[in-house]
């Protein structure tokens, strides 16, 4: 009724769909959530590739610290950062390390997961014509792009990009690059400015998502009929909305420290290179860490929740079974979102926090594993006894579960302050969180791309190339990160740009005596010389090689992505996977405004293989009078309360 009223206001004067908007309005400054989603997707894929490139250079430095970097050593920009023999210097390693983290987290995965998939799929799944604030949506994207470009440009400044780790801890971050006359145009400052833009973009995005999900659900789409994807997006939105502002505060305060000379994070009596630092002092470096991790821990869930959400759409669809424990998953994801805010200081056990605080944070950290396990277990049980279609999206989705499991379980030792003393900042930590975000989240995102590709293009992605993408990626990912656990437990430090060669006691620890099978294998691959034992440091070469192979493994995906747009197999219906959620009710590709007729959700999101039905899926949008009637009589109260059109 109110909706009908809303229609009468606007429809008198316009009908945008009839005349074509100019190109720049349709594809560049578009307010259509789908176009913005694709924009987010492409930008973030580019940034992902760039972040990956940085990592490959770093891996070269770790594996072969005494050899010139191939191909790049003649590039003028690199000269300031290489030594005379063309080797990577510590500065370059630090810069790439910091920017790899920043780009992957803030410019790669979050925009791809939340910006691209969230934007494209959420309004479709709740049956909305667009986001609640389309222009805000556009502003959010351009804000993100501006922040990203600033970060990218900072590489080419005389100071180079930020180089004190993606965490940008003060006072190191405050005092680095201070020897430049124009403080504004240094990498450290640009990192902060870029961050402020990225955070603003995320905040606008989060407001938009939550408002859309709460207010723009179509008729019949009650809370418990929302696909799990939408629930996860809403929780992610809240995480971004409430956790990002403290980081914005931290960024602004650090910006003041650098530009206005304040000393928020500069303690009294700080000396830099033997010279007393010219500031009032009295600040607290710990304050920065608190503000930073207040965001950055929830950020971890911002990285993982969309992936879980995508996987939980794909698994029921390809096992032809309902999602097991939908309600418990919804409550679990809410609990996860809540707990994510009160675990942050487990990143700070080494800062000299007292035992009482550590105990509190250990407790909450262990508690938060409970909802995570609920989510993973539900997904696992969902596959039990299903007739599974192992197409590329499903392969990635299936692989996601054990990879995320490994990442999650190896996090448990880090949750306790005592083991953390040993493992803090070692390769163990790197392996732990990369298992979650690299084979975890990124596999989830690949699954999503394969899954929703036909919706936008009307063509399927190639299955053979999909397999060629998946299997090498899976092997390489494990080849990269599994040895890191070993190295980390030995004590390899993540910030050593020579891969730990300087620390002989650790790096020469023998893992296989000559003559054994492993040593023979290493000899054959020419990683160690003949008759030499395999030492811990030799694993660096294994890891790095797998990293470069992983880059090759992405080639089939890139080919597949671009080729399938033109020559992929055409889909025969709007619902090629026989899925049940609302996005498959739209035409292919969905027009501006999404639905041709007003969508109505008649039932829950995962009604696969309903007993008594002659097909193995019953979409949410399928009008089945019998079912509707039955539901009315059972849940009369529920339906009429939530259904806005019944007044």
């Amino acid at each position, binding site marked *: 009724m109110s909706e009908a009223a809303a229609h009468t206001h606007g429809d008198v004067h316009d009908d945008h769909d009839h005349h074509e908007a100019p190109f720049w309005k349709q594809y560049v400054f578009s307010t259509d959530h789908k176009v913005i989603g694709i924009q987010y997707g492409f930008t973030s894929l580019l940034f992902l590739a760039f972040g990956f490139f940085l990592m490959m250079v770093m891996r070269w430095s770790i594996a072969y610290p005494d050899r010139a970097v191939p191909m790049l050593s003649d590039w003028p920009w690199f000269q300031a950062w290489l030594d005379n023999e063309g080797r990577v210097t510590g500065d370059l390693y630090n810069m790439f390390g910091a920017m790899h983290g920043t780009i992957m987290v803030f410019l790669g995965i979050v925009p791809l997961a939340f910006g691209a998939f969230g934007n494209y799929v959420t309004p479709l799944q709740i049956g909305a014509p667009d986001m609640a604030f389309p222009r805000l949506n556009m502003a959010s994207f351009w804000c993100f792009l501006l922040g990203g470009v600033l970060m990218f440009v900072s590489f080419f400044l005389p100071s180079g990009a930020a180089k004190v780790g993606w965490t940008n801890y003060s006072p190191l971050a405050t005092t680095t690059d201070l020897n430049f006359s124009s403080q504004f145009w240094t990498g450290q400052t640009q990192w902060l400015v870029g961050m402020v833009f990225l955070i603003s973009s995320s905040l606008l995005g989060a407001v938009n998502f939550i408002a859309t999900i*709460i207010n723009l659900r179509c008729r019949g789409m009650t809370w418990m009929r929302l696909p799990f994807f939408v629930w996860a997006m809403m929780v992610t939105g809240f995480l971004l909305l409430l956790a990002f502002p403290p980081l914005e505060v931290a960024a602004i305060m650090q910006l003041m420290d650098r530009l206005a000379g304040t000393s928020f994070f500069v303690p009294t009596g700080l000396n830099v290179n033997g010279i007393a630092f010219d500031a009032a002092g009295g600040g607290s470096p710990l304050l920065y860490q608190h503000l930073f991790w207040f965001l950055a821990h929830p950020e971890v869930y911002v990285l993982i929740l969309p992936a879980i959400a995508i996987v939980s759409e794909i698994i029921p669809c390809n096992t032809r079974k309902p999602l097991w424990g939908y309600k418990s998953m919804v409550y679990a994801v809410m609990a996860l979102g809540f707990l994510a805010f009160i675990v942050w200081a487990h990143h700070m056990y080494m800062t000299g926090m007292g035992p009482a605080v550590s105990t509190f944070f250990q407790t909450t950290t262990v508690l938060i594993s409970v909802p995570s396990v609920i989510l993973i277990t539900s997904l696992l049980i969902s596959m039990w006894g299903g007739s599974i279609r192992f197409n590329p999206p499903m392969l990635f989705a299936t692989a996601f579960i054990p990879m995320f499991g490994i990442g999650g379980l190896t996090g448990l030792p880090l949750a306790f302050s005592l083991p953390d003393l040993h493992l803090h900042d070692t390769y163990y930590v790197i392996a732990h969180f990369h298992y979650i975000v690299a084979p975890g989240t990124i596999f989830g995102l690949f699954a999503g791309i394969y899954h929703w590709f036909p919706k936008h293009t009307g063509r399927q992605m190639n299955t053979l190339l999909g397999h060629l993408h998946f299997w090498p990626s899976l092997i390489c990912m494990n080849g990269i990160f599994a040895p890191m656990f070993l190295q980390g437990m030995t004590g390899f430090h993540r910030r050593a740009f020579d891969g730990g060669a300087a620390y002989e006691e650790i790096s020469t620890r023998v893992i296989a005596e000559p003559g054994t099978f492993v040593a023979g294998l290493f000899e054959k691959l020419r990683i160690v010389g003949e008759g030499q034992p395999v030492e811990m440091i030799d694993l660096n070469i294994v890891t790095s090689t797998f990293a470069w192979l992983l880059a090759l493994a992405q080639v089939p995906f890139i080919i597949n992505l671009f080729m399938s747009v033109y020559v992929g197999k055409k889909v025969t219906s709007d619902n090629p996977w026989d899925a049940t959620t609302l996005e498959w009710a739209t035409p292919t590709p969905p027009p501006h405004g999404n639905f041709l007729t007003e969508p109505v959700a008649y039932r829950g999101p995962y009604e696969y293989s309903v007993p008594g039905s002659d097909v193995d899926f019953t979409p949410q949008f399928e009008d089945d009078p019998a079912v509707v009637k039955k539901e009315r009589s059972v849940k009369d109260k529920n339906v009429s309360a939530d259904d806005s059109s019944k007044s």
Partner: protein
Amino acid sequence: MADSPEELAKHKKLYKYVGIWLIVFSCVALALGKIPFLDFGPPGATWEDIVIGLSVSCIKASLVALIFMHLNHEKGLIYKTLLFTFLFFVSLMGLTLFALADPIKESYDTLNTLKGILNFKS
């Protein structure tokens, strides 16, 4: 929404009074700070002054939030959102302070910190 003329007139009156009360409370806050006679505790701003000063601010803030921002009759959804926001804000402030002054850990700076908390003037 209460849109009838009588209701609106009533609202106008309410807003006027609230505005006057806000001004009165501002004057009270200023007087508490500036007039020596109204200075609670030892001279200067001590924790007594901080508690009293901030409670006056809280009264003013709740007037603005409840009346001007209509939080006295808002939808449940907004209360829920604000409740969570408030919880997280409290956890941010509370837990960072907790980390600053760990009751078990004894060290030079923590003792000083505790002193700072007990006696706000530092």
